[in-house]
């Protein structure tokens, strides 16, 4: 009896299922039987077909059947499943390469740059596109691909910028700024709009939130990781102490120069003047670099007191590296050191001079080489320069006093 009623309505039930979004025949067979069983159960309780059937159909949400079909077809799509597995394996591999690269970088082992670059490029050009494509295809409804595309571009740009920054390649700055711009004018507005549209319907999409957080973390990592204020203050104090010491030593040197003027030292006068001139030239060069740094942060003529909180890494690069001032200075300082080495024959005095001019040798390259200048904030670079200035003043004093006493 019940079976007969259901059979009478067979075509109607089937067309209702098709209307609700089923097209895959094998799934229609399953669902048809399932729905009929549900109706039969209600009818067994004594209800009529119409009310039973309506209750069953109403209990199936509008989007449920297309979702089931989409999920079923995805499960059956071997190519898609392979692609998904490949994406995970590939993502894991590239992430491991990148992490090993960062470890190498930290330990200053060779090959770090290549590992990081290869790992990141694999992530950007293979893993992420695959991830976004599979993720997009796995969505039950055809969503607007613009979300996936903007999401991909944002994270790709961030990672490429990070690689440029880590490798010190030119253009890193522009990439960082454009990726920040991309987040601000592309990703965030789109995400907010998306979140509002779907509010109430379903939970906000977790992967997008995660990506947003990763993006923010990347920007924070790439931005100047500011030195602690305390450390900057220490550099500041040391720099001011160095400057005072330079003044003091230069006053004492000036008194020596007066002494040198008397007739007893006539034969030394030319040499002493030569030393003094060269030391003065070097001091001028140091001063130029310092003024350049201060001018770079936008306040020409300001004192270091006023600008030291402006923890700007580009200042040193601009004033010391880019215009060649740093290498010219080190070249001159090395000449100064070898000149003093020839003139001063006393071992003790010679050792003192060597200590003072240590910065002109490899030590300066190690502590304050190109990378050091690039990575250090304004205050540290400024301090290093005052240290060099102090060394020059002291070496000059020691050399001149040696010459006067011998």
């Amino acid at each position, binding site marked *: 009896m019940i079976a007969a009623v259901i*059979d009478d309505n*067979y075509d109607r039930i089937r067309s209702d299922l098709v209307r609700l979004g089923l097209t895959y025949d094998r799934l229609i*067979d*399953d669902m048809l*039987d*399932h729905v009929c069983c549900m109706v039969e159960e209600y009818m067994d309780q004594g209800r009529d077909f119409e009310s039973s059937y309506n209750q069953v159909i109403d209990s199936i949400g509008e989007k449920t059947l297309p979702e089931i079909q989409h999920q079923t077809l995805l499960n059956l799509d*071997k190519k898609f499943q392979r692609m998904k597995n490949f994406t995970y394996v590939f993502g894991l591999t590239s992430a491991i390469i990148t992490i090993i690269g960062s470890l190498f970088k930290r330990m200053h082992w060779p090959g770090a740059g290549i590992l990081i670059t290869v790992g990141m490029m694999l992530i950007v050009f293979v893993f992420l596109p695959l991830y976004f494509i599979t993720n997009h295809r796995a969505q039950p409804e055809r969503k607007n691909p613009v979300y996936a595309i903007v999401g991909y571009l944002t994270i790709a740009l961030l990672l490429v910028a990070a690689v440029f920054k880590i490798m010190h390649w030119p253009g890193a700055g522009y990439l960082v700024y454009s990726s920040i711009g991309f987040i601000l004018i592309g990703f965030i507005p789109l995400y907010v709009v998306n979140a509002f549209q779907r509010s109430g319907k379903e939970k906000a999409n977790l992967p997008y939130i995660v990506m947003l957080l990763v993006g923010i973390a990347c920007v924070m990592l790439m931005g100047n990781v500011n030195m602690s204020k305390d450390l900057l203050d220490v550099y500041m104090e040391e720099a001011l102490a160095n400057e005072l010491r330079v003044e003091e030593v230069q006053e004492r040197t000036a008194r020596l120069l007066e002494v040198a003027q008397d007739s007893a030292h006539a034969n030394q006068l030319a040499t002493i003047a030569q030393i003094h001139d060269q030391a003065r030239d070097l001091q001028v060069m140091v001063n130029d670099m310092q003024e350049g740094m201060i001018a770079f942060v936008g306040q020409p003529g300001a004192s270091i007191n006023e600008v030291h909180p402006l923890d700007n890494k580009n200042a040193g690069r601009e004033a010391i590296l880019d215009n060649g001032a740093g290498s010219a200075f080190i070249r001159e300082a090395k000449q100064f050191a070898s000149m003093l080495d020839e003139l001063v024959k006393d071992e003790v005095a010679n050792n003192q001079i060597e200590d003072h001019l240590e910065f002109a040798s490899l030590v300066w390259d190690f502590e304050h080489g190109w990378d050091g200048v690039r990575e250090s904030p304004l205050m540290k670079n400024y301090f290093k320069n005052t240290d060099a200035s102090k060394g020059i003043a002291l070496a000059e004093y020691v050399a001149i006093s040696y010459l006067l006493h011998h």
Partner: protein
Amino acid sequence: MIANDLLKGTLRTIVLKLLADNGRMYGYEITKKVEELSTGKIKLTFGALYPVLHKLEADGHIATETEYIGKRIRKYYTLTDTGRSWTEQKVDEFFDFVNTLTYVLKPTPA
């Protein structure tokens, strides 16, 4: 009621085990059986069930036999030979997992 995210990974194992114990079953019967065995705590919806069944069939773990019930087709699902040994393996894996979780979540006092 058991939360859906806890069930997610075990759905396949449940379906396989039911087929191993009951021979051949059709979809609606499986959902009813799960409800009965779990005293209503696990509600296996058709939305979760059919994608899994079709996947298992495509992978060769289960096969179908069709019968007409009036005009409509009823598909009975049965385990294949490979599906049978795979089920044992999956069930063992599951108990292993549960035991491990028990150790982790209920550490015995030292």
